[in-house]
């Protein structure tokens, strides 16, 4: 089920919220758990059992891990991590592995590719964060299986994050505050996220697809326009989902971590990754990078640590070489920023720093948006005058004329100012703010009714 669907907004959510607010406090978790399972099974009637299995398995294993730890053993920890990785690997990576083996050894291995269970990368990482934190004594083991299953299956963030760590919501599973102020904040956040997805991301996605289809009519500027559209699309798509998830959480008394902090205002790649998909970056930092030694090691070891983390980050996003290349691209750039040219970039004028960061990010999105490495290379060649395409042609002028306003609005909205101004207006003249928000909601619904099916980009991860 999509957040940006009429069924979710006008049927599922109102019914769930009504029941959630109507029942006494001790029944709220049960209502949420049932709603979450229905939400997931709507699109994944078989794979819902995998998610429930994951919850039950990790629940029991965590209890054993806590017990074993007292005797200095970690066999259950290893078993649990291996099983979680096996589940993730089976559904996400076995096809990639067999294809790679086939091409390396020149053999043909036949297999049946499996559909990826939605959200598996997110809920598996959440489960593993809990397991690691139990082992490290960062959290108390959860003895109530319903509460743990609720943590893993919470429908607002189940499918595309933010990746919520158990220690961040453990207290909220027992006690959470629900009041009109928080509900209002949640509704506002949800509507803004919905508008980002439906009005901006979907329209920008259509522009990118149009550019991709240009083929022989491609030009250098059209290639840049296309990747600029994708750059904005993926931000509004993913951050829109995160806004909706955080907003829904607030409506139900949960406080999920922020996942984005205006990444496109960054002046370096290091800063970009502090602002983009924050929940994933912090997960890798806490459970992979720091255990590997982080930056408190010799330079060569630090470089290896960064390459491991960024190779894994790329692989997390998808089982194909373009994602590995995308991850390593960032790993190498972060190493270069840290040890080679970061200090020079920091001394450049602010606009130069910003252009530098955005060009690097846009080039990165080429690998991300185009799965075939050779096609991505071809697109990059078009962007950098190497594809033999003209700099400008009539197709580009037509696309620019018909989409310039949308791209400009999107670029401005990717910065903090519009949201800040809107919040100031709401605080100063609440009635006007409410009218504007309601207007935005109506426009979004109109877009939704007349748009075709547009799932979120991050659902495939």
């Amino acid at each position, binding site marked *: 089920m999509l957040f940006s669907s009429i069924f979710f907004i006008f049927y599922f959510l109102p019914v769930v919220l009504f029941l959630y607010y109507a029942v006494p406090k001790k029944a709220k978790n049960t209502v949420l758990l049932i709603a979450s399972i229905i939400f997931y099974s709507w699109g994944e009637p*078989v794979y819902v*059992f*995998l998610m429930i*299995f994951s919850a039950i*398995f990790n629940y*029991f*294993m965590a209890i*054993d891990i806590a017990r*074993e730890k007292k005797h200095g053993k970690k066999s*259950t920890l290893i*078993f649990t991590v291996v*099983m979680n990785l*096996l*589940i993730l690997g*089976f559904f996400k990576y076995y096809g990639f592995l067999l294809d790679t083996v086939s091409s390396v050894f020149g053999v043909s291995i036949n297999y*049946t*590719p*499996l*559909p990826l269970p939605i959200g598996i990368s997110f809920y598996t990482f959440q489960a593993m964060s809990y397991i690691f934190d139990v082992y490290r004594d960062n959290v108390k083991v959860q003895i109530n299986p319903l509460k743990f299953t609720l943590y893993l299956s919470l429908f607002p963030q189940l499918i595309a994050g933010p990746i919520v760590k158990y220690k961040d919501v453990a207290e909220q599973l027992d006690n959470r505050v629900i009041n009109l102020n928080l509900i209002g904040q949640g509704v506002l956040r949800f509507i803004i996220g919905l508008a980002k997805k439906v009005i901006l991301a979907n329209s920008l996605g259509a522009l990118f697809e149009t550019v991709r289809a240009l083929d022989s009519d491609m030009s250098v500027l059209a290639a840049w326009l296309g990747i600029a559209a994708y750059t904005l699309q993926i931000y509004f798509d993913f951050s829109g989902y995160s806004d909706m998830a955080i907003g829904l959480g607030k409506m139900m008394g949960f406080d999920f971590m922020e996942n984005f902090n205006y990444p496109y205002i960054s002046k370096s790649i290091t800063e970009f990754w502090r602002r983009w998909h924050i929940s994933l970056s912090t997960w890798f930092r806490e459970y992979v990078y720091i255990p590997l030694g982080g930056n408190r090691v010799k330079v060569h070891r630090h470089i290896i640590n960064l390459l491991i983390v960024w190779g894994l980050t790329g692989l997390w996003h998808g089982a194909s070489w373009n994602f590995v290349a995308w991850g390593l691209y960032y790993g190498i750039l972060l190493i270069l920023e840290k040890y080679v040219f970061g200090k020079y970039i920091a001394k450049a004028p602010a606009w130069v720093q910003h252009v530098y960061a955005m060009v690097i990010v846009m080039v990165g999105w080429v690998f991300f948006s185009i799965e075939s490495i050779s096609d991505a290379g071809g697109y990059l060649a078009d962007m950098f005058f190497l594809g033999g395409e003209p700099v400008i042609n009539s197709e580009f002028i037509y696309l620019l004329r018909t989409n310039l306003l949308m791209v400009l609005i999107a670029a401005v909205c990717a910065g903090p100012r519009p949201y800040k101004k809107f919040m100031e207006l709401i605080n100063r003249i609440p009635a006007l703010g409410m009218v504007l928000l309601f207007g935005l909601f109506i426009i979004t619904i109109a877009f939704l009714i007349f748009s*075709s*099916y547009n799932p979120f980009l991050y659902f495939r991860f």
Partner: protein
Amino acid sequence: MTGIVKKIVFGVILLAFLFYVYSDQNAKDVSMDKIKEAMLKDESVAAMEEGTARDVMHYFGVDVSSYEGVIYFKGMEALSVNELLIVKGASRDAVAPVRDAIDSRVDSQIKTFDGYGPEQVALLNDHIVFQKGNYIFYCTDEHSGRIAEEFRDVI
């Protein structure tokens, strides 16, 4: 339950689930002629008329030449929403976009009949669509469940 027994139980349950999922998704390589022959044995499908490649492009935006085979049948009456579409691709990923095309088609049909065709809307809401191996199956019909089972039996 001791730790080791618990681990074995979880391992066995997981393996059984993975085996089930794999075999459920597995499909034999059957020719489209054989599938069509089997489908036409169903009286509901036999009552429909076969659509052309142009119909598939017109209604679904799907270019038949991009796939290994396409079967399309449509109800004969003007206001009928009954349809059967089976697409075979070179790989599972190759037919994935057809799923979006089918979702768009169903949405568009529901919008068309919303308000004056409650029977058609009910049928469309009960449509069946699934992917098995390199095949994608879509059917809107009073007996779509039966037709889907017949398709599963063939592949």
